[in-house]
């Protein structure tokens, strides 16, 4: 209501003020300065016009010598008029004034026009007045008479000019006419006419001047000005009048405002009184509040607080009276150990600086003296802070009590459900949620029957309800259903809850999930069944190792009834077959690992002994570890029998029934032990059947197997019972002669065997012949262990075989030596690489046409420190065998490439042929490796030729084929080395991406005499050419061979005829020199120089192939 009235007053004031301003503006319409300015302009106009008029009259009286003042005044008047017009332009209402000004301007304009005419007219008159005396002077000088006559006329003219009158003008014109009418001499006439014309012109102009002057006088500028001035004054007066009215109005309005102001002041006083009263009331109210109250101003200083505030915070009492700042209060509070909690009882950090000013911010303060205050710090819109504290200590303590109870409920391991009298759920605890899978929100208000699984009868439920409604507690079990449908067991106790008056208000159900217990019971039941029904005997002993229980299977196996054994020690079962150590081990294991299992022989009640598989495990009790044991055993009598069978199969050859390799090894080891002990001699006969393979292949496996069985029979018949005949697989048999007196017995036995096996065999109705080769080793002379003996026997057998079949051979020292040699060589070869004993030689490949060296074949040499040069034929196979060919091959490739790179830099355009071993493929010579190598040496793949053997080409392995193809794609060429010696036919060359065939030296060496070889070489060449393959002849040694090869269009070759393999430094020289002389003359070969071994020309060493030590035959070596 008040606000409404105040708003009205505000509006009224606003309107009055607006009116005031409007009125004030109205009074302002009378602008004195502007008025003065206008008047000033008008005055100036009047003055200037008056000056102009004065000038005009001066001019017409010829008193003005120049016209510049006109220009000035006219400009000034125009300017003043312009100013006036501009001033009036602002006054929209005074159109009459505009018209007045326009009329005045028009009159002035007319005046200016007249002035211009007056100016030109007076100028002309002045012109004549200037000139006439001079003209008259001239006339009187030339015609004195005429001069005298004209002088009075001229005087009259000047008089007229000074004092014009119509009469004088009339008289002048008459006199001039009279003068002109007289007779004159021609020159007098001309001068007179000239003078008279000027005088007439003067009169004419004077007349015009008169007219102009008269017109000038009639221009009504003064009346226009007067009218303008009058109108302007009138208007000014009217405006002044209005201004006066508005002034009066202004006064009235101002008075009204003053009265209003007085009234307003009175109202304010009254309001202040009311406010003060209200304030006092409020203050009293606040002071008497049970809550503590404090109000802080926007500047943070305490404005108001009540007594209670000081009571709540007694330590603040000292500073409260001094209008403290809120930060001081906070500081004081911080000194006390006040803990702050939010409404959900979560701790909040103490406030730093200002209290956070938010709406409806409640929190709790816990004081060190145990009081609890509910605090709220609220901001008013004016940024004032209201702090209210309510003592909630009582309720807080209650709350804490309740919370404790609540927490107990919440954290109870038992499910708790509280329902109302109708059985509707009002509360469930989290355990309930866990157990049932229902969320509290889902079940509140529901009946607990949602959990029913349906196996309880309505009668049972009725009984439940009857019990609890009568105020008693019901106990029982439920078989309930979880939300996800799973069934669980729980035991429940449901009891009523009564209020103070004893009325039942709620029921509380406390339930426990007993599903696990139920399951355990089931499990136990199941275990018991297993215990009862299993086929394995079970026996449990207690901590004193007395039998506690046994199962029926125990009785079945041992024959003892439970009552016969319970309480006795398990040792009643002991068979006596195991020594004390056995049982000790068993107990150790039990104590250490808690378990033991193994085979044990026990005795039945009837006294029979039987094997059993026994597993003993300690039962882990919670507080007596390892003290009870359970023993489970099964009768393995049957299994034992089976094992014996398997044993036989593992040690004997299934086909012949002879001991196999493993049993033989056992027997051999056994007999070697005995032999060592007894200093016996032991002999080993390694027998390999001759021709068995062909029989097996031709007559089939069945016949082969039959044959082997017959052989086994005959072998057994050749030896003593104590000797061992074993089959090693295939057609290999070994005989072990134990304890022989001398070596000849072994030889005798061997002969006997050979003879026995020479007798024809019955092979499916046919007679078949085989033989045997036998190698013999003796212990201790030929080896100290079984493996060595066997290996040496094998070697001796091979020697026997190579010495002709049906033969026996003792292992000898030389064989041994050979073995050792080989081992030493192997050792040295392994070191050769790192000791840099390997180096490379290069044999030129020559173009028969040009005589130029086109390439070189790279040949490996090994310079052994003690044995000298070793033939590649010896060490390459060895390297292949022991896997060393991989690193050696890589070394060769790398060095050859380095060398080739040097040559290329030196300008030698040579391709290099490097021999490859088949084994290198398997040992990691990948295309990537070769590509990297070429890239490192910047060596064009086109200049690399890899020489491979026919066997590699024949290899149908896809891997090696793709290997060749990948390298081909790089641009590397392939040559088939030693072509013709293997099984290769030209036809398959089509399938393989080889580029070059190298005809083996064996075909070349007998050329051209050997007609077969000649025909073969021709055929190879023809075929190769037709496939577009290049052909290189190896081992060209004589001029005849060269000529023949040239004749059949073989284009390239290598051999001693051109050059033996050379160290790299000699190649450039030979390259320069070429082989033309050699070609054309078919003369001597080039003599190699400074070879590290003696180099003989092949003519004196034709069999160089078989004398690798001499370094010949390099072109057939493998690398």
């Amino acid at each position, binding site marked *: 209501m008040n606000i409404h009235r105040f708003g009205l007053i505000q509006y009224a004031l606003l309107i009055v003020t607006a009116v005031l301003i409007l009125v004030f503006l109205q009074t302002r319409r009378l602008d004195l300065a502007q008025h003065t300015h206008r008047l000033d302009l008008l005055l100036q106009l009047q003055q200037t016009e008056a000056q102009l008029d004065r000038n005009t009259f001066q001019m017409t009286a010829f008193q003005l*010598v*120049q*016209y*510049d*003042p*006109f*220009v*000035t005044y*006219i400009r000034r008047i*125009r300017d003043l008029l312009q100013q006036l017009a501009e001033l009036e332009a602002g006054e929209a209402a005074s159109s009459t004034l505009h018209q007045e000004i326009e009329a005045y301007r028009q009159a002035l304009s007319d005046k200016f*026009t007249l002035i*211009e*005419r007056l*100016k*030109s007219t*007076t*100028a*002309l008159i*002045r*012109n*004549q*007045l*200037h*000139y006439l005396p*001079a*003209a008259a002077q001239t006339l009187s000088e030339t015609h004195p008479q005429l001069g005298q006559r004209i002088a009075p006329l001229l005087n009259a003219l000047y008089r007229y000019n000074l004092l014009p009158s119509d009469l004088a003008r009339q008289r002048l014109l008459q006199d001039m006419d009279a003068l002109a009418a007289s007779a004159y001499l021609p020159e007098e006439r001309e001068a007179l006419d*000239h003078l008279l*014309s*000027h005088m007439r*012109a003067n009169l004419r102009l004077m007349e015009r001047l008169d007219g102009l002057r008269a017109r000038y006088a009639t221009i009504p500028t003064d009346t226009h000005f007067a009218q303008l001035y009058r109108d302007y004054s009138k208007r000014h007066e009217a405006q002044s009048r209005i201004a006066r009215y508005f002034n009066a109005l202004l006064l009235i309005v101002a008075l009204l405002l003053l009265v209003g102001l007085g009234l307003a002041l009175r109202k304010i006083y009254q309001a202040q009184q009311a406010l003060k009263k209200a304030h006092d009331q409020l203050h009293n109210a606040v002071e008497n509040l049970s809550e503590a109250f404090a109000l802080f101003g926007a500047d943070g200083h305490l404005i108001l607080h009540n007594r209670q505030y000081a009571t709540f915070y007694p330590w603040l009492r000292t500073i409260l009276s001094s209008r403290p700042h809120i930060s001081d209060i906070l500081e004081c509070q911080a000194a006390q150990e006040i803990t702050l909690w939010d409404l959900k009882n979560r701790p909040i950090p103490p406030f730093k600086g200002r209290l956070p000013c938010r709406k409806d911010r409640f929190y709790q303060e816990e004081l060190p003296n145990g009081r609890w205050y509910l605090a709220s710090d609220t901001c008013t819109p004016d940024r004032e802070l209201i702090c209210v504290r309510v003592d909630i200590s009582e309720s807080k303590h209650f709350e804490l009590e309740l919370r404790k109870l609540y927490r107990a409920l919440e954290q109870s391991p038992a499910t708790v459900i509280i329902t109302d009298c109708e059985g509707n759920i009002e509360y469930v605890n989290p355990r309930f949620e866990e157990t049932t899978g229902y969320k509290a929100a889902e079940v509140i208000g529901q009946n607990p029957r949602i959990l029913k699984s349906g196996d309880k009868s309505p009668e049972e439920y009725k009984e439940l309800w009857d019990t609890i409604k009568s105020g008693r507690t019901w106990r029982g079990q439920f078989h309930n259903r979880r939300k996800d449908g799973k069934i669980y067991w729980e035991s429940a106790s449901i009891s009523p809850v009564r209020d103070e008056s004893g009325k039942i208000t709620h029921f509380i159900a406390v339930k426990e999930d007993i599903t696990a217990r139920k399951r355990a019971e089931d499990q136990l039941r199941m275990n018991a069944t297993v215990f009862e029904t299993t086929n394995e005997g079970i026996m449990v002993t207690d901590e004193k190792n007395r039998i506690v229980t046994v199962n029926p299977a125990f009785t079945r196996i041992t024959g003892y009834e439970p009552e016969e054994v319970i309480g006795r020690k398990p040792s009643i079962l002991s068979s006596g077959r195991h020594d004390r150590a056995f049982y000790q081990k068993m107990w150790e294991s039990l104590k250490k690992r808690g378990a033991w299992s193994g085979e044990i022989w026990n005795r039945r009640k009837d006294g029979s002994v039987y094997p059993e598989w026994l597993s003993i495990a300690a039962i882990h009790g919670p507080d007596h570890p390892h003290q009870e044991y359970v023993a489970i055993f099964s009768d393995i009598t049957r299994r034992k029998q089976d094992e014996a069978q398997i044993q036989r199969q593992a040690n004997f050859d299934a086909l012949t029934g002879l001991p196999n390799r493993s049993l033989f090894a056992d027997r051999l080891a056994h007999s070697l032990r005995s032999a060592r002990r007894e200093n016996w001699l032991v002999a080993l006969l390694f027998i390999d059947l001759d021709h068995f393979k062909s029989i097996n292949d031709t007559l089939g496996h069945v016949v082969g197997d039959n044959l082997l069985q017959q052989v086994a029979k005959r072998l057994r018949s050749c030896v003593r019972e104590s000797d061992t005949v074993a089959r090693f697989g295939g057609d290999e048999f070994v005989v072990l002669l134990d304890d022989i007196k001398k070596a000849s017995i072994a030889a005798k036995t061997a002969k006997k065997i050979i003879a026995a096996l020479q007798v024809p065999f019955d092979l499916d109705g046919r007679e078949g012949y085989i033989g045997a080769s036998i190698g013999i080793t003796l212990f201790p002379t030929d080896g100290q262990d079984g493996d060595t003996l066997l290996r040496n026997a094998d070697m001796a057998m091979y020697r026997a075989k190579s010495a002709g079949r049906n033969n026996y051979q003792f292992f000898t020292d030389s064989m041994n030596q050979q073995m050792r040699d080989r081992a030493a060589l192997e050792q040295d070869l392994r070191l050769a690489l790192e000791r840099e004993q390997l180096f490379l030689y290069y044999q030129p490949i020559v173009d028969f046409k040009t005589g130029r060296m086109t390439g070189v074949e790279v040949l490996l040499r090994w310079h052994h420190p003690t044995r000298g040069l070793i033939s590649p034929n010896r060490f390459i196979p060895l390297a292949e065998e022991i896997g060393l060919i991989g690193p050696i091959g890589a070394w060769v490739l790398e060095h050859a490439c380095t060398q080739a790179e040097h040559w290329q830099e030196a300008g030698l355009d040579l391709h290099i042929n490097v021999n490859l071993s088949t084994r290198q493929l398997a040992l990691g010579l990948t295309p990537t490796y070769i590509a990297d190598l070429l890239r490192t040496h910047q060596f064009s793949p086109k200049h690399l030729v890899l020489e491979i053997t026919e066997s590699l080409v024949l290899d149908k392995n896809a891997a090696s084929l793709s290997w060749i193809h990948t390298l081909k794609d790089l641009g590397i060429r392939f040559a088939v080395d030693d072509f013709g010696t293997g099984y290769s036919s030209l036809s398959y060359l089509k399938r393989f991406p080889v580029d070059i065939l190298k005809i083996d030296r064996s075909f070349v060496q007998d050329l051209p005499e050997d007609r077969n070889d000649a025909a073969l070489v021709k055929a190879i060449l023809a075929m190769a050419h037709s496939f577009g393959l290049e052909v290189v002849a190896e081992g060209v040694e004589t001029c005849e061979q060269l000529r023949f090869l040239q004749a059949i269009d073989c284009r390239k070759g290598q051999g001693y005829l051109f050059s033996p393999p050379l160290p790299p430094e000699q190649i450039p020289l030979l390259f320069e020199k070429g082989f033309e002389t050699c070609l054309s003359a078919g003369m001597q070969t080039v003599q190699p120089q400074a070879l590290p071994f003696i180099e003989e020309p092949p003519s004196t060493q034709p069999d160089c192939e078989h004398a690798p030590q001499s370094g010949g035959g390099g072109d057939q070596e493998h690398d």
Partner: protein
Amino acid sequence: MFWRPVFLSLLFLGGVHPVFGDFPRKEPISPIPAPPAEDPRKIALGKRLFQDPQLSQDGTISCERCHRLAEGGHDPRPFSKGVGGALGSVNAPTVYNSSLNLAQFWDGRASSLEEQIDGPLQNPVEMAMSWPEVLRRLRADATYQQAFRALYPDGITAANVRDAIAAFERSLLTWNAPFDRWLRGDKTALSPQALQGYELFQSYGCIACHQGANVGGNLYQEMGAMGDYFADRGTPITRSDLGRFNVTGRPEDRHFFKVPSLRLAVRTAPYFHDASAKTLEEAIRLMARYQLGREIPDAHIPPIIAFLQSLMGTHPLLRP
């Protein structure tokens, strides 16, 4: 608008006072007044505009092209060539001292210098421009933008272009002529011949029209007041020959022209609106014949020329 009174007072002090002041000699001719005080930047801008051919349609003709400041502020060609070689119909008068004239153009059709500028600028045979185009070109030039903004709050407008050019033209006063020095009392400033010329100039009546500070320029006079000039000229009368009649339409203004200033007469050949007099002698003779109604003897012409010579003052842009 407090500056207006200041400006007015400056105008009065600079322009009016000398006219009314006491001279050592009371003669029909008064000395050239001092130029009005003006912002030198405005004069510089006016000068730049005056000399800028951009103000013509094809960018070839500046104001100065036909008012050659070094020579006499006029065009020595009979008729000026405008855009595209078009010929004007009257001889371009001098721009020097033009602010002292009562009006501009031969026929006085512009009452102020500002008004005058519109004439040649928009005349198709002169600069053939329109104001919007002029403003567009000037606004495209950053230096103009800057110069105008420094002087005028509203930048480049037609009124401001006129104002700048007029301010420059008002500064074109030929100061300190020998005759003016003589008027101020320097007895040695005039040669005896020039003094004789001045006396002849008066006695022949020339002084009736050619008086005031500008020795003319402050009234209109009929061409051929004492003889039929146009009949004797021998060429047909053109519209331009009608003179002030073209402005007022009043028959009595036929053949009336603004009396030209003689301050730079010795430099501003050819003479008359139709450029019919090629030399000063010829002009003097023709003027005596048609305006004074008499012939002047040969002997009197050199003194008059000497007198006219003494009327020429100096200006930095005017070749001495």
